[in-house]
């Protein structure tokens, strides 16, 4: 399952940061997960709990911030909010959309102690 290996990546980053920034416990992790990142936030939550069990992030609060997806139309220049990759431009119907936001898959911040 995809989300599981992403959670392992998250834990890997937490451990690296723990070593370089001197902390031993992660109390909160704030993620940014765009609707076009291909990731299901609920599956990520489940994976996070499983993967962090017994680690420095055991029991940490997981906040997932879901930004909107936006795209600019190469045909008419409109920038608009979209729901899916295959959405057409809302003003002219073209599919020549350049994704601007919505693919984020990042750790934004940590609360550590």
């Amino acid at each position, binding site marked *: 399952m*995809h989300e599981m*290996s992403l959670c392992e990546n998250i834990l890997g*980053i937490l451990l*690296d940061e723990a070593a370089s920034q001197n902390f031993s416990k992660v109390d909160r992790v704030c993620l940014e997960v765009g609707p076009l990142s*291909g990731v299901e936030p609920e599956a990520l939550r489940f994976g996070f709990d499983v993967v962090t069990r017994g680690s420095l992030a*055991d029991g940490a609060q997981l906040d997932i911030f879901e930004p909107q997806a936006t795209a600019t139309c190469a045909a008419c220049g409109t920038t608009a909010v979209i729901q899916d990759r295959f959405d057409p431009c809302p003003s002219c119907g073209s599919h020549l959309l350049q994704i601007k936001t919505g693919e984020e898959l990042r750790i934004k*911040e*940590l609360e550590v102690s």
Partner: protein
Amino acid sequence: MCTVCGCGSGETRIEDGTKHALGYGHEATPDHSHHHHYGAGDAGASVPGMSQSRLIQLEQDILSKNNSYADTNRRYFAEHGIFALNLVSSPGSGKTSLLVETLKKLGKTHACYVIEGDQQTTNDADRIRETGVPALQINTGKGCHLDGHMIGHALERLTPKDGAYVFIENVGNLVCPAAFDLGEAHKVAILSVTEGEDKPLKYPDMFAAADVMLLNKTDLLPYVDFDVEIATANARKINPEINVLTVSAQSGDGLEDWIDWIGTARAKLFAGYAATDAAE
């Protein structure tokens, strides 16, 4: 799986039983070591009442580690004039069959290598080796995709010649291989005509990430309800630039065009650096 190493706690296996041999691909993480045991110790280390919470602004891509391994691979490919393709599809679309047919032709004239990703068996690598082309199997265990780190190790074992073609067959899965850059020049998405024209809309990330879509098993078109035009239009809703080629590994239809595409794409990437002959 150990994320620092990626070679993991016994899940990933690169053929010949060696789980982790050489140092290739680790420049990206200088502190690479295989002795991380996540979870041991740390959780209990803080003293209650003494801990002071602080905020760290990280803004780090979750896939940053994979991306740095992929960058290392991409640099390696560039330095050695190696043209790498990453073949992705759902299970059974015909990745291995297409590779076998491709290599029966391209492998006769040019130096070619194959990295096979599969959860369990070495069947696919065996099928490739029957064509005379060197192949290496990576078994990902429960892992549902190849990652940049595994490819680094596979290259270390495979030692492709300069100017070669390297074909990577990803684990049959239309979801996560889209997110894991391996350092390839192009992702090639294979869709067989038995799967339905709507697959690009159902798995948009994969078709957004691919530069080519091969519509395979066209020999079956008379027997199935599949409209090549609709499948192409669906893929272009996701990715207006995607190249679409129709092929049949069974009948050989369209293979010439596909092999031409490979040669042209290579020439675009490595202008003036000819591909290495098979015999050299």
